[in-house]
């Protein structure tokens, strides 16, 4: 970690830097609204109360330690970031920073902060808070989950304060999409958390027992009350820094209430009974039954289109299978043959998965790049449709033949394997059932083995004792870097052959090179060309089969304006400041 503060510089250097900074600031385009951010085109009605729910009780309100969805949903509302990705246009926009400048070939980011902004407890926000926040996130002892994002090629980003409202970020290498890194990195109040950090008790700070007066953020809402096991209430932050088109201070809503529902069914019942105004992250069948359940209150269903999540059929190509899980070795000899993988891809009916499992709320995929990634998906690659004749020809060319209707390999073994699925996920179990039936058409006996999630994960990531598995994955971002841990042979989501010290195959080495190259350039066209090539290499080798990407589904009570599902967290609550009740 390396963070430099302003007073580390000798006095002369400091003055010179200030002068330079002032010059830079003067050169920047003047922000149209010096203190508040005006959201154009927004004409809402102030007032009102929103009831939402969380599927679990949040474990913490501390954005540094929030890892699970419930905590992150709440912390994202209580806090704000320097730059923010607009969920509709997918472009980076000013938030707490009014503008940013990139220099030194993409290595230096100079961010000008919004002036006159106050935390929800009324204390002013300055560059010191930014510096403090990044010091916390980069501290290896604290090991915040955000730290991985801020370390580029093993070197941390350096943060320097150049003035009360000017901060410089130095990257070790040019990093494409560096501006996107700032999204979701909450700026912490130094005046509240610094004493706790110095005493080493930051990990216990802002837990659910903390008094609301001790919790402050820059988000649209602030903590009001917490009733253990029951609900969490947030109230309007009177110091919030956004306005609507008419100059009304945001957020519109006075209060947001999160109750805790144990599961999606309980959530759906509450929503149908009118106890909740909003429900997100719905499965296709819950989504379909909502309209029938909600007879009492009018609702508006929201289908946000394809998200970043996708289902794959993972082949066990792990190099340690012969020693670690010899019982999986025979099936692996088939999966290691590229024509066999291609044949399976040609046999499986992706449209049936879309129709039967996701009730048409999904799209078939050719690569793991979902339509939510917009222009990053290689348009030349189309999802394959069922072609049993070609599949059989491929198998025959690879030395397979048929005994009656049973497929046998070149040494006479009949081809049969197990399809692992997470028994807790209905969609994945359903996909496994469909796939098993698809493979039967090729004379393959595939048996579905539903396993409880923990043992499912253990087999896939540790013991490697499985043949194929239906796995649900999700890219972290619409940018190619959101899928980096899947592509890189050293990545922890490189599930088909894990723990490679160096790329095991020439094509994996090529993907590694392409991904590393695209990561270091800022020219979007060149990045796109490189990423298209990654996808072409994938499609030629098919180390796993990309199946479908499901839609982001949710619903709101009629009369609530604003919510829209988005591929990035927090799915439907991102623009909660602009939610309003129609009068």
């Amino acid at each position, binding site marked *: 970690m390396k963070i430099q503060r302003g007073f580390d510089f000798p006095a002369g250097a400091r003055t010179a830097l200030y002068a330079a900074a002032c010059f830079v600031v003067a050169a920047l385009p003047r922000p149209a609204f010096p203190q508040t951010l005006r959201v154009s085109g927004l004409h809402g009605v102030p007032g009102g109360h929103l009831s939402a729910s969380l599927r679990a009780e949040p474990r913490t309100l501390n954005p540094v330690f929030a890892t699970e969805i419930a905590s992150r949903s709440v912390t994202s509302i209580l806090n704000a970031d320097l730059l923010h990705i607009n969920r509709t246009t997918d472009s980076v926009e000013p938030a707490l920073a009014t503008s940013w400048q990139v220099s030194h070939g993409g290595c230096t980011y100079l961010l000008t902060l919004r002036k006159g902004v106050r935390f929800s407890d009324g204390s002013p926000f300055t560059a010191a808070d930014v510096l403090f926040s990044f010091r916390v996130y980069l501290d290896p002892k604290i090991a915040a989950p955000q730290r991985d994002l801020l370390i580029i090629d093993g070197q941390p980003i350096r943060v320097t304060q150049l003035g009360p409202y000017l901060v410089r970020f130095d990257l070790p290498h040019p990093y494409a999409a560096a501006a996107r890194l700032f999204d979701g990195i909450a700026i912490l109040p130094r005046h509240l958390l610094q004493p706790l950090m110095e005493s080493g008790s930051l990990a216990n700070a802002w837990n659910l027992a903390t008094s609301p007066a001790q919790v402050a953020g820059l988000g649209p809402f602030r903590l009001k009350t917490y009733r253990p096991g029951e609900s969490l209430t947030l109230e309007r932050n009177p110091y919030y820094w956004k306005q609507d088109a008419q100059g009304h201070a945001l957020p519109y809503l006075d209060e947001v209430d999160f109750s805790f529902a144990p599961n999606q069914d309980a959530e759906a019942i509450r929503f149908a009974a009118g106890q909740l105004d909003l429900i997100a992250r719905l499965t296709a069948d819950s989504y379909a039954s909502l309209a029938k359940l909600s007879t009492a209150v009018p609702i508006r269903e929201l289908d946000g289109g394809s998200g970043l999540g996708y289902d794959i059929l993972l082949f066990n190509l792990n190099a340690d299978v012969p020693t670690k899980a010899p019982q999986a070795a025979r099936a692996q000899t088939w999966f290691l043959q590229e024509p066999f993988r291609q044949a399976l891809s040609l046999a499986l009916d992706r449209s049936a998965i879309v129709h039967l499992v996701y009730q048409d709320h999904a799209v078939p995929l050719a690569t793991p790049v979902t339509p939510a990634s917009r222009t990053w998906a290689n348009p030349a690659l189309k999802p394959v449709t069922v072609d049993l004749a070609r599949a059989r020809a491929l198998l025959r060319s690879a030395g397979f033949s048929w005994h009656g209707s049973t497929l046998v390999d070149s040494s006479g073994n009949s081809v049969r394997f197990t399809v692992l699925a997470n028994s807790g996920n209905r969609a994945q179990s359903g996909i496994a059932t469909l796939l098993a039936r698809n493979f039967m058409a090729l004379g393959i006996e595939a*048996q579905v083995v539903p396993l409880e999630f923990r043992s499912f994960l253990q087999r896939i990531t540790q013991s490697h004792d499985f043949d194929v598995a239906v796995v649900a994955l999700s890219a972290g971002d619409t940018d190619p870097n959101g899928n980096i841990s899947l592509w890189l042979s050293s990545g922890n989501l490189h599930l088909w052959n894990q723990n490679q010290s160096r790329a095991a195959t020439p094509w994996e080495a090529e993907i590694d090179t392409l991904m590393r190259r695209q990561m270091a350039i800022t020219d979007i066209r060149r990045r796109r060309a490189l990423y298209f090539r990654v996808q072409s290499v994938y499609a030629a080798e098919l180390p796993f089969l990309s199946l479908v990407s499901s839609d982001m589904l949710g619903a709101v009570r009629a009369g609530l304006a604003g919510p829209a599902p988005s591929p990035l967290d927090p799915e439907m609550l991102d623009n909660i400041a602009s939610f309003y009740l129609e009068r």
Partner: protein
Amino acid sequence: MTMLRVAVVILAFLSTVLVFADFFATSDPAAINASTPYLPPESIRFTSPMGHFHLRPYLVRRQPAPGQFAVYSKDFVLVPLRFLVTTGDMDGAHLRFCGIDNGSPHFLGTDGFGRDVWSRLVYGGRTTLAIGLAAASAATLLGMIVGLVAGSAGGVADTLLMRLVEVMISIPWFYLLLAMRALLPLRVSPWWAVVATTALMACVGWARPARILRGATLAARQHAYVTMARATGASLWHIARWHTLPDIAPQAITQFTVLLPQFVAGEIALSYFGLGVTEPLVSWGVMLTAARHLSTIVEYPWLMSPIWALIPFFFSVHLLADRASSRRWLTLSVFVRHSYKSFLPKAQGENPARF
């Protein structure tokens, strides 16, 4: 008695349908049809498309509404039902009791993959009841052997066996079953999973019948004819085989009838957790996994049809269990015992039938 008759009729009907599942089903239970997911049950009518009464039943068939999921048109066509038809699918050709010309009828609708619920109910029932019957038989037999040995031998053997029984009873059997099933290897064929499930249920289920039958054995040993048999030098084995066993038979039958529904429910619970029967095999447990979701119960209640088959089944079996412990069965057992005695080997010297 009438109720008992009803129970017997229900069980006879169920067994006939399930034993001849290939005949009574209308299609391959695993055949997926992407165009008709969640098709509601199709009714039959005795009127021809012209509106005239007809002896040949017609199936009311609705077409999927284009572009919508699981929505079917209000209009329908009447398709004549044909009897004794031969159908062919991935599982081979079968003679079915009825069918239609193109496709197959769905008397109980279809599930989310367009698979025929009636056929799945029939094939699934066969699997579920076969597991239940086999496991209950095995557990009763095991329990009987242990009970008989412990009760007859007494002493150290009795103490050891009964402590083992107490250990088995004190462990919640369902969790034991879950744990034991999870230890089994992943790569077993679906049929082996069935056999394993059966064996496991028998392994955890024998303890209670063993304890009860040991008590019955002890009680049976108090009879005068047993004392007499011992006095005349009959061996332990002889007494167990010719005096105790016929005496505890009614209790064994009762234990069997108590275990049977328990094990059927056990299979359903195991499959519900994905540990019993797995796809592509079908059982009532596999079918009822659909009940995990509120939306299914609300929108597609016909998927719960195994429950409607289970209710009369449990009812009948419990009624039989009830009767098994009643006097009529006891009279039967006395009759059995006496008829056994009349066949006793003469090698024992005196004819015990005289006692």
